């Protein structure tokens, strides 16, 4: 019910249709990784999925934002079925909840920049995506480019301006044999920026 309302509101304000360029929607286990410029990004990628996929595709969300207020927490956990991640922790492995979700067969939506950027193109990627790609080689890595959201809801603003935003889905990729961490992360970033 709330999920339907959120999708309807997203469609009304920012459109948020999915454009599948390099692959189609699929039940296969995937990690979707996208550029990050606004608080709407998580909901937009999620809303761009066909309804039947939304249950098994879980957005990875920062606990310090989505876990805070009661409303955010409810939407994150009950509606989006998000995996909350602790960005501050130094002690335990922050990727632990993601690995658990992947082991359970779920797909993930990930923002490898780690935080919202302000530039037109995404900042360098954090290494989490590399570690997941290495630990789960069978999972498809799908680059996603979110267009226009940095204009619709730039960092520091409160209300989204209605602009048509789209989520472009690119060609699935994998970690190559013997590929180094920086090389892989740069290739992944280029796969996203290539759709800008």
């Amino acid at each position, binding site marked *: 019910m709330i999920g339907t309302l959120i999708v309807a509101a997203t469609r009304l304000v920012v459109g948020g249709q999915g454009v599948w360029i390099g692959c189609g929607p699929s039940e296969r286990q995937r990690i979707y990784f996208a550029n990050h410029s606004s608080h709407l990004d998580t909901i937009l990628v999620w809303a761009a999925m066909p309804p039947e996929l939304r249950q098994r595709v879980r957005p990875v969300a920062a606990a310090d934002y989505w876990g805070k207020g009661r409303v955010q927490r409810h939407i994150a956990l009950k509606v989006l079925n998000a995996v909350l991640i602790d960005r501050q922790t130094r002690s335990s492995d922050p990727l632990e909840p993601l690995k658990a979700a992947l082991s359970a067969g779920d797909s993930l939506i990930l923002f490898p920049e780690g935080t919202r950027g302000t530039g037109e193109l995404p900042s360098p990627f954090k290494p989490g995506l590399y570690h997941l790609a290495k630990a789960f080689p069978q999972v498809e890595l799908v680059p996603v480019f979110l267009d226009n959201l940095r204009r619709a809801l730039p960092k520091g*603003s409160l209300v989204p301006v209605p*602009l048509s935003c789209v989520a472009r889905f690119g060609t699935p990729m994998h970690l190559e044999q013997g590929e180094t961490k920086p090389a892989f992360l740069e290739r992944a970033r280029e796969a996203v920026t290539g759709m800008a």
Partner: protein
Amino acid sequence: MSDFGTMHYLIGGVVALLVVASLVGWAVSRSVTSEAGRETVANLNARIKAWWVMVAIFAVAFLFGKAVTLLLFVAVSFYCLREFYSLTPTHPSDHPAMAAAFYIFLPLQYWLVWIDWVTMLTIAIPVYAFLALPVLSMLKGVTADYLQRVAKIQWGLMLAVFCISHAPALLMLDLGGVPPVQLLFFLVTVVQMSDVLQYVAGKLFGRHKMAPNVSPSKTWEGLVVGGLAATGVGAALWWITPFSPLEAAGMAFAIVVAGALGGLVLSAVKRSLGAKDWGAMIQGHGGALDRMDSVTFAAPLFFHLTNYFFAR
């Protein structure tokens, strides 16, 4: 409710017209053989289908009165403005100006129509938005492309909100015994029939391209034949207006000319932004602004001509 007695007949007439168009479209789709012809007919039938939806929406609004009609035009302006700003390369620092356009000036304009405040309706966006929006963009301190950005934001607001709001603004005119909703019907019918007839006449007789760089499908033959036919349609509708038949023809002619020029100007704007259609909302028609482009120019002109010469 004698107001709406005539409207029932008018909407019935439009529905009958659409039935005929659908039948013709279906018949043509069975007889066409060439590949290019099939494409044209498929596009034609997609347009007719979209017309059914649009006529249904308009019919509901017209029959339920001013409030629903205004809400419909709020939605139209909203989608047109969204299409315009989506194609416009603004900077993130234009966010406050665009938010003000959407959340302050759009509702304000239609509220002014609702309370019949003609003077403020005429200056709210051309004066107050014109002065306020550049201030909001300036406060962010980004000067790169500043003039282009504020100019485009104002242009979008003028076209999508100010110009389009003049169509439902016809509802506030006092025309003696004539219900003003019939004038809105007159405007929308003449504009849209002009588009359709120019399209059909262009397909049938089109030889000489009118503006190959701006709108490659428009021809002089289409404009003249379709435009005159639409003027005739307007003249034939004189009995629902406060105009004499000759005056109705004159008004329809003004609407046709303004509409054609509006279509060309918006086409030029669209192309300067690097797009072919404003959006993909209506199948076969492109976006909302592709359907409203003629209205943006015709509505203010028709409103002021009527207000000046015929309103009390």
